């Protein structure tokens, strides 16, 4: 092994004398030193080999195979093996003894820049846009000739603008005339985002005064904009956190808020929903991989049914014996919560399960510089949808009226002809089912583990109580208020202190409004 290393070093040393010979490039790529590999990537990009671009992107996935002294090969995504030097299929078995090029983040960056240069002339406009972007990031003066050529040929306005900015970025690193640089600063500043800032802030100390002052004012402008955005962003984060809280709490607003069951097993219903998502994805992966993108759409009703069914079972077996003894529901549901956690732990194991995010929910939406991740946006919308659907069920259907009648006076409701046991089971099932749906959403942003529920139970009770027990609107407003307050505090106080402050604020607030935000008023309240 040591022998091999020495050998490799020798080969690498030999390659230092920069040669554009393909074999020398391949030998560099075969080195174990990232310095050599990085150089090899640059060489390959400028080598003019027709296969260079494909070979480079193959390198990112470990499909570019090299060994010192041997011709480099790459595998296409279809699996055919191509000789880099000739861009023709390689002989069978030619890959014996070859190893993938070592990549780390540095190499990945180098490859991205290199590919960028190579695809500047791609017929696909979006590829050219991406290329311009990576040239912007790479800022490698060696790409300038290629960029100039591309600029001359470019027709698309957007790509053109991007290329100009890329050129400006490079200009700033070269010793171009002062005027060019000042113009370049203006172009870069156009972006107005953090990448622009990176570039401008990174301008060397030795840059001419005029350039520096232009950059300084550009930085100033971008920063002001960013600072303003930051506040808006905080509120957006708060709304997003608030919706997570809302989702987690809204089921509890039914089982606890409406039915009066101190439901310590609520978190476990959320957890069951998350595990249902995992199961749905697992089944789809094996039986219908084509439907994976729609896994969440399947998981939502599935989770509702699973958690709802468990809820109905709990209600029928345990809770129904406890009406009129609300405090004892605490004890029983606590016991149920322990059992459910352990059951899931026994079945699925104690560790996290992987729930993947469909592509349509990955990534983020850029709204005037505001970054909103798609899954968060989706959660906000989902939470609101669940909320209003529930509101509709409770306010506009017979079920809703009967639920409220039963919880206010079970005996009288029965005398009125309401089938209280059915209503109880349905209501508890509904609350549990909604908690299950929350689990689907939470599986996108949190651990899917047996402890998932424990992480939300305290917050959920806090939200329901803060908002005012028995009032769904209170839960909505409570969740959003706590979410936004939390996110506004966090940048100043830090996450830990912020949370402490928030808890103290809640305690103080309850002194002012002892029955929560949306307190029930009226003579019956403490009659």
């Amino acid at each position, binding site marked *: 092994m040591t022998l091999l290393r020495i050998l490799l070093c020798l080969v690498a040393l030999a390659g230092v004398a920069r040669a554009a010979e393909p074999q020398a490039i391949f030998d560099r790529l075969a080195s174990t030193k990232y310095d050599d590999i990085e150089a090899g990537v640059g060489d390959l990009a400028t080598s003019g080999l027709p296969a260079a671009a494909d070979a480079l992107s193959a390198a990112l996935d470990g499909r570019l195979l090299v060994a010192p002294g041997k011709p480099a090969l790459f595998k296409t995504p279809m699996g055919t093996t191509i000789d880099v030097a000739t861009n023709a299929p390689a002989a069978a078995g030619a890959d014996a003894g070859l190893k993938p090029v*070592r990549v*780390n*983040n540095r190499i990945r960056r180098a490859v991205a820049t290199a590919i960028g240069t190579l695809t500047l002339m791609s017929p696909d406009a979006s590829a050219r846009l991406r290329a311009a972007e990576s040239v912007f990031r790479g800022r490698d003066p060696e790409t300038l000739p290629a960029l100039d050529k591309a600029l001359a040929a470019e027709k698309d306005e957007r790509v053109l603008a991007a290329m100009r900015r890329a050129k400006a970025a490079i200009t700033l690193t070269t010793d171009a005339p002062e005027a060019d640089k000042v113009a370049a600063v203006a172009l870069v500043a156009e972006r107005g985002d*953090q990448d622009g800032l990176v570039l401008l802030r990174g301008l060397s100390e030795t840059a001419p005064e005029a350039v520096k002052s232009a950059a300084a004012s550009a930085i100033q402008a971008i920063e002001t904009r960013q600072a303003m955005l930051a506040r808006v962003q905080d509120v957006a984060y708060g709304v997003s956190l608030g919706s*997570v809280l809302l989702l987690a709490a809204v089921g509890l607003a039914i089982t606890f808020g409406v039915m009066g069951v101190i439901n310590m097993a609520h978190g476990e219903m959320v957890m069951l929903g998350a595990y249902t998502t995992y199961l749905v994805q697992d089944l789809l992966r094996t039986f219908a991989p084509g439907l994976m993108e729609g896994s969440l759409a399947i998981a939502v009703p599935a989770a509702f049914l699973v958690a709802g069914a468990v809820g109905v079972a709990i209600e029928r077996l345990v809770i129904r014996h406890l009406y009129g003894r609300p405090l004892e529901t605490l004890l029983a549901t606590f016991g149920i919560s322990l059992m459910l*956690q352990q059951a899931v732990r026994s079945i699925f194991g*104690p*560790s996290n399960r992987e729930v993947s995010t469909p592509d349509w929910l990955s990534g983020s939406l850029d709204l005037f510089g505001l970054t909103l991740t798609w899954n968060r946006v989706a959660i906000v919308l989902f939470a609101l949808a669940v909320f209003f659907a529930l509101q509709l069920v409770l306010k506009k259907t017979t079920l809703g009226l009967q639920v409220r009648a039963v919880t206010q006076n079970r005996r009288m409701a029965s005398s009125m002809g309401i089938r209280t046991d059915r209503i109880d089971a349905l209501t508890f099932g509904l609350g549990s089912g909604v908690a299950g749906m929350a689990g689907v959403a939470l599986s996108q942003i949190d651990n899917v583990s047996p402890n998932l529920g424990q992480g939300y139970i305290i917050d959920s009770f806090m939200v329901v109580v803060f908002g005012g027990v028995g009032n769904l609107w209170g839960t909505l407003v409570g969740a959003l208020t706590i979410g936004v307050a939390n996110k506004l505090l966090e940048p100043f106080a830090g996450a830990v202190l912020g949370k402490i402050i928030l808890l103290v604020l809640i305690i103080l607030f309850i002194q002012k409004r002892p029955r929560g935000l949306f307190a029930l008023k009226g003579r019956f309240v403490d009659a």
Partner: protein
Amino acid sequence: EETIKIGILHSLSGTMAISETTLKDVMLMLIEEQNKKGGVLGKKLQPVVVDPASNWPLFAEKARELLTKEKVAATFGCWTSVSRKSVLPVFEEANGILFYPVQYEGEESSKNVFYTGAAPNQQAIPAVDYLMNEEGVQRWVLAGTDYVYPRTTNKILEAYLKSKGVAQEDILINYTPFGHSDWQTIVSEIKKFGSSGKKTAVVSTINGDANVPFYKELGNQGVKATDIPVVAFSVGEEELAGLDTKPLVGHLAAWNYFMSVDNEANKAFIEKWQAFIKNDKRVTNDPMEAHYIGFNMWVKAVEKAGTTEPDAVIDALIGVSVPNLTGGYSTMMPNHHITKPVLIGEIKEDGQFDTVFETPGLLVANEWSPYLEGSKDLIADWRKPLSCGNFNVKTGKCGGGAKASQ
């Protein structure tokens, strides 16, 4: 038939069950295997499993039960530092033997504890070196869960970075509570901090449950490893198994072992593990290796001492050398910590790590950090005649009553 009892003190329920249950299983496997080889000193080993349920005082209670009721010859257990701190007095009082398999903050050396996880210099510092040298990082975010291990590690790192000329304004320290799940603000802060024009990296001592939402948020906000790499000390294969790793490719972790390490010993270990747990998808990780090493060391020491009597075994353990799973040998040093290689890996799409750097040799643990004021003059050496976990080389005295040999 006479047996030798081995205590297994890992949480099987509560928040830590996620990490610790695996360690219980790996111990059962190691014991079963040893028994197949005929046990130790001609006696079979008998595992005694208890569940301290992620509850720190319960750890102490269970430790006492293992030591005084079950009379175990050695115990393998604990994950969090607080659980170790909780059982430490019990082990010292009852003169038991504890093998602690997790990377920790150092600043401790007990006669009765053998630390098979990494001390800060065996994990954190090489990782920072790598980022500085390989990626040219100049600006650092030290993000951690708000407790002692991250705080200590970050303190050491801060001192280290400053000694390397990093300016105060190029270091951002951020703490979050256990189980923190909303990372929006912090990730965007990291992005902002990383937009200064200097290459920025995140050193994460975020622990446990909080990691999954943290990485999910990183992925969603598009923080790519090529822009702002994150190097973590508490994220291993087991944690990645619960994550969609596609968006995380290239982020790093520093450990002393990766499942992807390519050698015969490791391959055999993985095979045995997957057969034992009856699941060919189960991964292995660093603390598992630590238990593997610790257990083999114990076996060897008992055989050397010819008895399981604690004092004899404790003495015999020092200097014991056993193969680790990365292709070398680890040795129990007089400070009760072991020698380890440091591996830096980048996350791959399949949830494994691609080793991008490995220290050329094995590192000896600095249980007392040279970067901290109070401890830079301390050393631990449990060989006679010093027999001291915190010997002050300046004053020439062994501090701390219970820590000194009694």
